[in-house]
């Protein structure tokens, strides 16, 4: 456990060094958040009764999404990992007395967390200062905070476990391009990154909600805004656990099978 902790620390500190990138990322996130909210305001004015959630909940969703982009954006691939499989460098990693899956899992957590830590606070602070329905409003009761944090953690683990499946699949396909593109585009839409999932039409929405990608950012952000409560919330949390464990098991099985017959290409 200790070795993974120190591995996490190394990667985390490494990630914190890119400060200019963080600043420019922040500016982008501010502007995107503002544009997104202006856009939804126009729709809200067009017909408030068609709006599937309160405007306040939507604002919370948008700002949390912008603040924690680094945590939940599926297509935040680490090309180094893909390259190491393709060019054979992964052999060095395999020589180490740690399990590849665990090491990369920890690495993914560290990289994403270090990016998010630098960016989220100014974005959240700015959003909190905005006037009422457009900014971030903090939930009053303790339970909402608790479930949001719990759900955010689950979603974070889920996203990394899904990334691991994609990384592992490259052991079988060698070229990462196809799977990367497919995973990115499908997950982006089904995860609610294009439009929040409650905006999907009835019929489609029910199906998408059960799919694994809906268990990522969709759940915690909606809990925070008070859009997801009660029985529905508990079901969503259970689904999150279910998909996380499923992805974890699939990824680990893929790793074990791949390493049993791994062929190092090149040298």
């Amino acid at each position, binding site marked *: 456990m200790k070795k993974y902790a120190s591995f996490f620390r190394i990667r985390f500190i490494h990630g914190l060094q890119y400060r200019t990138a963080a600043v420019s990322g922040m500016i982008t996130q501010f502007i995107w958040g503002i544009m997104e909210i202006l*856009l939804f305001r126009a729709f809200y004015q067009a017909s408030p009764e068609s709006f599937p959630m309160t405007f306040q909940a939507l604002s919370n969703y948008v700002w949390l999404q912008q603040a924690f982009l680094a945590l939940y954006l599926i297509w935040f691939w680490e090309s180094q990992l893909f390259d190491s499989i393709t060019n054979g460098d992964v052999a060095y990693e395999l020589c180490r007395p740690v399990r590849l899956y665990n090491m990369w899992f920890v690495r993914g957590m560290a990289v994403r967390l270090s990016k998010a830590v630098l960016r989220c606070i100014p974005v959240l602070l700015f959003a909190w200062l905005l006037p009422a329905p457009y900014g971030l409003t903090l939930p009053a009761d303790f339970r909402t905070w608790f479930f949001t944090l719990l759900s955010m953690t689950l979603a974070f683990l889920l996203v990394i476990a899904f990334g691991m499946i994609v990384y592992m699949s490259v052991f079988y396909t060698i070229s990462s391009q196809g799977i990367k593109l497919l995973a990115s585009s499908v997950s982006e839409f089904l995860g609610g990154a294009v439009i929040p999932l409650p905006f999907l039409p009835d019929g489609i929405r029910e199906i998408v909600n059960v799919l694994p990608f809906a268990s990522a950012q969709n759940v915690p952000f909606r809990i925070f805004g008070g859009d997801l409560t009660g029985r529905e919330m508990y079901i969503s949390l259970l689904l999150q656990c279910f998909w996380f464990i499923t992805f974890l098991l699939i990824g680990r099985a893929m790793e074990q099978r791949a390493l049993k017959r791994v062929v190092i290409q090149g040298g």
Partner: protein
Amino acid sequence: MKSLYLYKKYCIIHLKCIMQHKVSFLLNTIGIFLMSFNLFLGVYFMMDRFQQVKGFSYEEVLLCFSITLMAFTIAELFFRSLDTFDSIIRNGEFDRILLRPRNSLFTVLCSKIEFTRIGRLLQTLLMFAYGILYSTIDWTPFRIIVIALMVLGGVVVFASIYLIFASICFFTLEGLEFMNVFTDGAREYGKYPIGVYGKTVVTICTYIVPFSLFQYYPFLYLTGKAEHAWYGLLPIAGCLFLIPAILLWKFGVSRYQSSGS
């Protein structure tokens, strides 16, 4: 005329180059298609739920979206080398370009033509056709000219933004990431007529970066929401944005110091 011939030659070379890796080209094209297809789905589901936004119907929004995306895609197809200009400076490629007996900007443009964007271009054409067939625009010869001007003006505006990026690289030696707000942001949020975002955004997009000159105002005229025919000619005014961009580029070239690698 000779430059045009040369450019054609470069085009063919780039095309041959890509065709060496057919599968990778195909996958990239499909991937880019899928990514922008997500944008389309977003618009479709939103319009399906709300029917109209600020008086624009689904067909009109789709037409506007396709015009913006088409202009962006064409600009990206031909001017992508300016987007990655920082690497051209850093690896010393620009020193070599300066030695060539042609205009430096022209040579830079020849160094990269991004054919993988064809997937998205195809999608914009489909949406464009749908928008034209099903929107209730009263077509006159002048309106056809206006729509062509919109696409053309858009390409010029996006190209100017790319050129400004590239010129800034002369001084910073590094691409400024937040400048992507103007290109990616415009692609992302230009899917709806700019007026949707409110007055402040329209003002910024008129006087600072002229997005609304080729997208919003002519579109108002096109859909009959504004009577002024001169709105339709505003894309030409948007093209004036190219002048400061070229001046900045010239200034940058005159101050150019090799990065030393």
